[in-house]
């Protein structure tokens, strides 16, 4: 059984394929080829939503992506739910579940509609004016109420289970829009053999030609011409055709973002298909064939369900075989509505009257309407409408004087003429110009290599549109001779005049008491826009933000020009003087998932792991994120918490031996004839005299003199250094080195190679370290005499080549075993096994931090914050004072860098040894001083040290070294904590153990 308003024949729907769907829980039937809007109209349903602010009942206004009213939520379950879809774009599928939005408890009875009666209390700028005071009420009262009462759809409650993919594409010509202009352009461009991509947001190509009934192009009717054009394009290998694909964003250098909806129109999509596909197309030339949008008329109560754009009604009848009503009043300022009236009359809709704003409409289509017996009322406007959930009548009256007449109807078709669609052109940063003859903004000066064709640049006659598209296609392809650009299309179509109306239509009602809507989606009325100008807003950009007109998800595509005209009238300025607001991406709302693509879950952010990561995981390590590295923080045993585990790990290193994965250390190989000279210039230290086989702790400054990075460097050969950096610092340090090498000292013969991933680093630290390693090492004498602290040897360990560092970041006898990363795990296993008799203990970064703090070794980024000189952090000894130059040297000589009251690194001991300070806490001299108190510095590191037997802390304190022996205070919420300022070394102050 067919729906009540379905025409028996005609349209592009497939009557052999019925489709069942539900809307707000009620079941309906449509046909394959229907949109949700056309199927609802065929079932006589016009009420589809409640408006944003006043909760007024709203119907389907348009038949395209510019739809401001008919926003619906669609999805069979929460994981597939998408809110705010335009019913005019949603293709129905069998079993589809759709619902209206912004209504409670039901669409027909919505409590929020009380706002409509309060309209005079909800003027333009209402939010700015009303919710200003008291501040506390915002969070408690205003915001929750507004959030419930205003707004669009709801967010889905479950994670999206669909798949989204992303593709890149390149072409010579991208054609956006496959109406007559776009098809002609694509045909012409692709004929030359260049790569062409043609996309259109609709389910099928053809645009306006899909709803023409009597148009003939080159001897074929419009639908046949489209079919042939598409078949020709399909047959060309250099053409890619994308339907259901919206060009949503125009980015610099002709990068255009396309959103392809791949499976939403399928009832049972295969699992191999993504739901949507993002295309990033880089085109040499772009042809914009975006068409035009019919303008609503702004008259009192112009928003009732049943009020529809005239051309949209024509589309529903001609393309979808759906009759939008039984009895229509037409309100127009242009010829096109006559054509719509005639087509609808042919479809069985009674045309009660055509009210034409123009005093004396003439022309072929007007005469045809009169001849067809349609009552034409020149110089007449709609004074208002009635009907709660659907229009019931329109009140018509002469523009100048006279009585009004109430005409019963269930449909009101309006047309204020057409507005060229400039969204993409505007996004490309092209300049628009007001065309006085067309009374429209049109593209003027291009910034990108693009060209607009057809209706989107104000060309309306079909023959001219086709010729314009063809010429642009040839020109964009860049291959045709200029005489090949002209091509004549023989067209038999209705000739229409192209007048229109902008702004409020004349009426005799009290303007302060009627609602004549300008922006349907944001519920902005003519009165609101005028009020904004009365309150002093002059710039259209300010009026837009104050009234919110044009700021809804449709970016005001149906409202901008009307708002502009109202402002222009109110200010007595011409439209071009008022200006035009800018369109921004996306052209239509685009899903977040499209942009996220595959970057979800595990693929959201890359993770770096070391060759020893799996061992740590198997041994119960708790990991922490350091940059994108996963590092083992501690290895709890038998229910230990972090504090207990760290205390045990620290004791093991101090008393016996610990093993630590240092593979994340940044590593750079610096090689070449001038390697030593380069190191001399990049680091504060002197390198020339460092002999091969020796290590040195290096400090790197920025040119402004502040500490940037540090690390141990080994001289492997006269022309080769093994440089290590902080874990997070490697890319920054390499970039810094490359910068100087390439741009300041290109004469130096040096090569830099990142080797972070090439070496696994196993630190073996503690009094027993040598005993553990000795049996595993070949060709290296580990004895204290042969291999002292800060030396490096090459040889083998467990048969694997190694660069063995004798170095310590713990203050104990220690080695760092560098082996090729692929052998890291095997060597680790071997060392761990060999260490068993000595109780070798794996330790993590937390223990490493405590051990180094006990020794007063800094961590760049913890003690330093980018404003510290080497001397500030006690590293003055590492600065080669005799060196002529190094990066940062000149800045260290600036007077500010040498002030005695600079913050200097000191140790801090709380009077209660059990109290552990908070890192980041401020340090003051007198906790009872009046507020605001002057802070002397802050705590940078703080731990409970099981080895020292008390809490220890490091801080940066103004003139700190001169304050050693003083008591300072750390104010905390529970009261100030007294701290003694001490030397920042808490264990083995003489440094004997390291030489063990």
């Amino acid at each position: 059984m067919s729906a009540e308003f379905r025409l028996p024949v005609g349209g592009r729907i497939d009557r052999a394929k019925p489709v069942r769907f539900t809307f707000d829980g009620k079941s309906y039937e449509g046909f394959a080829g229907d949109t949700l809007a056309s199927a609802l109209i065929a079932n006589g349903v016009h009420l589809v939503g409640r408006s944003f602010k006043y909760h007024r009942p709203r119907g389907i206004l348009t038949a395209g992506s510019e739809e401001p009213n008919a926003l619906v939520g669609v999805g069979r379950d929460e994981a597939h739910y998408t809110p705010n879809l335009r019913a005019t774009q949603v293709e129905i599928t069998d079993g589809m579940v759709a619902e209206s939005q912004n209504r409670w408890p039901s669409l027909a009875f919505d409590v929020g509609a009380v706002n409509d009666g309060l309209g005079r209390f909800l003027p333009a700028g209402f939010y700015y004016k009303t919710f200003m005071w008291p501040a506390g009420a915002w969070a408690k009262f205003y915001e929750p109420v507004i959030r419930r009462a205003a707004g669009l759809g709801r967010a889905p409650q479950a994670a999206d289970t669909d798949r989204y993919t992303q593709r890149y594409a390149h072409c010579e010509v991208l054609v956006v829009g496959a109406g007559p202009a776009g098809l002609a352009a694509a045909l012409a461009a692709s004929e030359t053999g260049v790569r062409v991509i043609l996309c259109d947001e609709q389910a099928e190509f053809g645009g306006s030609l899909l709803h023409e009934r009597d148009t003939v192009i080159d001897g074929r009717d419009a639908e046949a011409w489209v079919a042939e054009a598409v078949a020709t394009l399909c047959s060309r290998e250099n053409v890619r055709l994308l339907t259901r694909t919206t060009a949503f964003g125009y980015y610099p250098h002709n990068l255009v973002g396309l959103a392809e909806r791949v499976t939403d129109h399928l009832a049972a999509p295969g699992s191999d298909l993504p739901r949507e596909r993002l295309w990033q197309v880089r085109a040499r030339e772009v042809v914009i064939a975006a068409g035009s949008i019919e303008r609503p008329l702004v008259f009192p109560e112009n928003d009732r369900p049943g009020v529809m754009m005239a051309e949209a009604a024509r589309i529903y009848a001609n393309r979808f075989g759906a009759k939008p009503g039984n009895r229509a009043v037409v309100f127009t300022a242009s010829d096109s509505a006559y054509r719509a009236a005639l087509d609808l009359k042919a479809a069985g809709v009674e045309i009660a009257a055509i009210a034409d704003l123009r005093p004396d409409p003439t022309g072929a289509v007007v005469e045809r309407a009169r001849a067809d017996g349609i009552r034409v009322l020149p110089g007449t406007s709609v004074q208002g409408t009635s009907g709660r959930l659907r229009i019931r009548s329109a009140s018509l009256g002469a523009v100048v004087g006279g009585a009004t007449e109430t005409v019963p109807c269930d449909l009101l078709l309006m047309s204020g003429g057409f507005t060229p669609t400039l969204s993409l052109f505007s996004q490309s940063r092209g300049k628009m110009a007001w065309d006085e003859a067309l009374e429209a903004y049109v593209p003027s000066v291009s910034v990108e290599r693009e060209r607009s064709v057809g209706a989107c640049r104000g060309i309306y006659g079909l023959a001219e549109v086709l010729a314009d598209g063809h010429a642009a296609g040839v020109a964009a392809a860049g291959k045709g001779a200029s005489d090949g650009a002209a091509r004549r299309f023989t067209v038999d179509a209705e000739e229409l005049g192209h007048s229109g109306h902008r702004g409020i239509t004349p009426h005799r009602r009290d303007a302060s008491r009627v609602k004549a809507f300008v922006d349907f989606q944001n519920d902005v009325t003519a009165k609101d826009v005028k009020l904004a100008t009365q309150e002093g807003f002059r710039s259209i950009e300010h009026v837009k933000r104050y009234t919110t007109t044009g700021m809804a998800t449709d970016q005001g595509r149906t409202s901008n020009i009307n708002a502009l005209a109202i402002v222009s009238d109110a200010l007595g300025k011409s439209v071009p003087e008022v200006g035009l607001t800018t369109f921004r991406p996306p052209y239509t709302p685009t899903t977040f998932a499209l942009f996220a693509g595959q970057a979800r879950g595990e693929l959201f952010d890359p993770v770096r792991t070391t060759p020893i990561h799996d061992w740590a995981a198997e041994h119960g390590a708790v990991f922490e994120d350091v940059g994108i590295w996963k590092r083992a923080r501690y290895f709890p045993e038998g229910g230990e918490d972090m504090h207990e585990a760290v205390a045990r790990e620290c004791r093991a290193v101090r008393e016996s031996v610990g093993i630590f994965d240092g593979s994340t250390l940044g590593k750079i190989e610096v090689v070449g004839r001038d390697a030593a000279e380069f190191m001399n210039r990049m680091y504060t230290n002197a390198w020339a005299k460092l002999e091969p086989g020796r290590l040195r702790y290096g400090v790197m400054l920025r040119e402004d003199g502040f500490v940037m990075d540090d690390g141990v460097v080994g001289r492997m050969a006269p022309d080769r250094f093994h440089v290590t950096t902080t874990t997070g610092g490697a890319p920054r340090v390499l970039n810094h080195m490359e910068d100087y090498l390439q741009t300041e000292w290109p004469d130096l013969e040096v090569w830099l190679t990142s080797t972070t991933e090439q070496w696994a680093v196993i630190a073996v630290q503690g009094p027993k370290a040598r005993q553990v390693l000795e049996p595993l090492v070949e060709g290296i004498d580990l004895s204290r005499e042969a291999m002292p602290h800060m030396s490096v040897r090459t040889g083998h360990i467990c048969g694997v080549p190694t660069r063995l560092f004798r170095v310590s970041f713990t203050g104990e006898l220690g080695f760092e075993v560098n082996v090729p990363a692929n052998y890291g795990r095997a060597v680790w296993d071997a060392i761990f096994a060999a260490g068993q008799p000595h109780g070798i203990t794996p330790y993590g970064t937390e223990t490493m931090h405590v051990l180094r703090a006990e020794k007063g070794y800094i961590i760049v980024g913890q003690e330093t914050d980018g404003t510290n000189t080497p001397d500030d952090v006690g590293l003055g000894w590492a600065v080669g004072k005799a060196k002529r130059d190094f990066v940062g040297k000149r800045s260290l000589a600036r007077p500010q860098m040498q002030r005695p009251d600079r913050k200097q690194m000191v140790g801090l001991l709380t009077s209660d040894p059990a109290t552990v300070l908070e890192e980041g806490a401020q340090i003051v001299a007198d906790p009872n001083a009046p507020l605001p108190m002057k802070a002397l510095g802050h705590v940078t590191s703080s731990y409970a040290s099981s080895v020292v037997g008390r809490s220890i802390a490091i801080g940066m304190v103004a003139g700190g070294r001169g304050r050693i022996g003083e008591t300072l205070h750390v104010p905390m919420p529970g009261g100030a904590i007294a701290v003694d300022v001490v030397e920042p070394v808490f264990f083995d102050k003489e440094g004997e153990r390291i030489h063990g």
Partner: protein
Amino acid sequence: MLLITCPYCGPRPELEFRYAGEAHIARPEDPSGVEADPWGEFLYNRTNARGPYAERWRHFHGCGRFFNAIRDTTTDFFLATYKVGEPRPDVPARAVASASTGGAGER
């Protein structure tokens, strides 16, 4: 996303590059001989021009080379790119996509 023409590799998407500040600010040959004020100038003061601006870029995810570019800061378009050591080319500011992909211009 802009296309940036690396003088070594050719046009590549912006994502492959990293900005590196104003160009043609040479580090003094002997910094220790530079007075405090000019040194502060060298460290901190930049032209920040409105319009064509010479700046350094690095083809970070490509050849790794630093190079210089003239970019119009009002349009964001690159007017020229050239190798380190080469003189700043004399290019007029044009509100177009680039020398190789210039806009279609006035109709």
